[in-house]
């Protein structure tokens, strides 16, 4: 049972990764691409982590996985903000 | 037949050649430093591939230790190279 749940979660995660990648390729400008990338990949990662956590042997590993997800969430949010701000200032200057 | 060890070994040879080509091609300094790091990564892949003993068994720990030492040596050499380049660029502006 756990394996099926894990498989479903991971597949859902992969779907969001795919969406994020397509967004990265298709969307016109930097901001929308950043938007797509950060949102989709983080959700994809969350589902992936959930799937792996279900599959993990013990609670500690599952908690470590969740911690990884939280760290990536914070880091990618902050870095996409910085990139957007940098790009915005660049445009304001030239 | 094509074992994992051989697959990664051959890929390693290709990466070494890739790094060597750019390192010899006098591209910009930055490219040559990256090329040497890529070549190093290729040699490390060769070592790790040699250490691999199949999905079930324990791999040979010795090449792992060698690669760890190699990575640290490579980063210290890269740091010195970039510091020299910075000093060269700074010198370039003063005179």
């Amino acid at each position: 049972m756990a394996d099926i749940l894990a498989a479903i979660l991971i597949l859902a995660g992969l779907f969001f990764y795919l969406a994020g990648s397509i967004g990265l390729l298709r969307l016109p400008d930097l901001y929308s691409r950043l938007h797509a990338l950060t949102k989709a990949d983080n959700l994809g990662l969350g589902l992936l982590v959930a799937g792996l956590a279900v599959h993990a042997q013990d609670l500690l590993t599952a908690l470590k996985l969740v911690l990884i997800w939280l760290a990536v969430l914070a880091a990618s949010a902050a870095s996409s903000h910085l990139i957007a701000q940098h790009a915005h200032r660049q445009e304001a200057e030239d | 037949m094509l074992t994992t060890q051989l697959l990664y070994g051959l890929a390693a040879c290709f990466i070494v050649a890739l790094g060597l080509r750019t390192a010899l091609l006098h591209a910009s300094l930055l490219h040559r430093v990256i090329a040497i790091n890529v070549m190093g990564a290729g040699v490390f892949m060769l070592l790790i591939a040699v250490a691999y003993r199949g999905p079930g068994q324990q791999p040979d720990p010795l090449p792992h230790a060698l690669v760890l030492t190699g990575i640290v040596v490579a980063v210290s050499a890269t740091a010195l190279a970039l510091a020299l380049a910075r000093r060269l660029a700074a010198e370039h502006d003063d005179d």
Partner: protein
Amino acid sequence: MNSTSLLVFDVLLLVSILSLAWASLATRDARNSVILFMAFGLVLAVAWSRLMAPDVALAEAAIGSGLSGALLLAAVYRSRGQQPAAQQQSTGEHNTSAATVAARWAVTLLSAAVAGVLAWALLHASGSAPHDTLPLAIAANLDASGVSNPVTAVLLNFRAYDTLLELAVLLTAVLGIFALGPAAAGYRPAGPVFAGLTRWLVPLLILAAGYLLWAGAHAPGGAFQAGATLAAAGVVLRLAGRQHIGLPAGGTLRVLIAAGAGVFLTVGLVLFMTGRPFLGYPTAWAGTLILLIESAAMLAIAATLVLAFVGGRPQAAGTPAHTAGAKPVPGNPGKE
């Protein structure tokens, strides 16, 4: 996971590694090249964990891709401030005079020859059964080494002399950087978001470094990975505008960078003078001695890698920190 799906995964992984390496070396823009190199390092770390080398995967991600990437990016932004981008790639790939094309072909053929010969030798070498004399010897002596992680046992006990010289290499690099001149000017103080992230991320990195150091005895981890994580905390602080990253100045800084090789050599010599072989830990004490050496090595590696990122002798703590509002300093990524 039957072998075919593993093979498919391997091929996909290798294709992405090779294409990232090719792209990193082929792009002319320096910044893209560095970012592709960092991606190459990360995917390489996936390859190391696939080949059951977790220690190396940690080090590759932390040092090979993370810190080397930070060093290279800092160099790119620093030189972008001074020379116009075009002048940077004046040689190599693009002028198409006959001599350069011929030279490029010659070098390509030479590299292909080296790869071919290397592959030919590898095919021959891996033809025979893998040699297990050393792995078996390591396994046999593992319990006498004081740690249960074989890689740490090799690094800190069986081939401790290699690690001692390697710490000397790190020390030489940082002394060479110091001899070249004072540090570059720092970065502007961080905006609210980055400052918030730093206040939360740096303690987590320090905690992770301590865990990695402790776990190194029985699980993947150890002094190098811990030192690199600590250095990452230092780099984040430096980027957030903290000039001296909490590093001591003057004498204490010297003690810090000399700590790794210093403690290692002292332990080796003390044992040597009390009749044991040089760097030959008594079995009962091996575990504690290794932990002592690894702790000193972690501090030294972290300090060295951060000082390499700082790029020169840190000004004395007394000098005024970089004041906001000054003219944008070359090599300053953010304009906030």
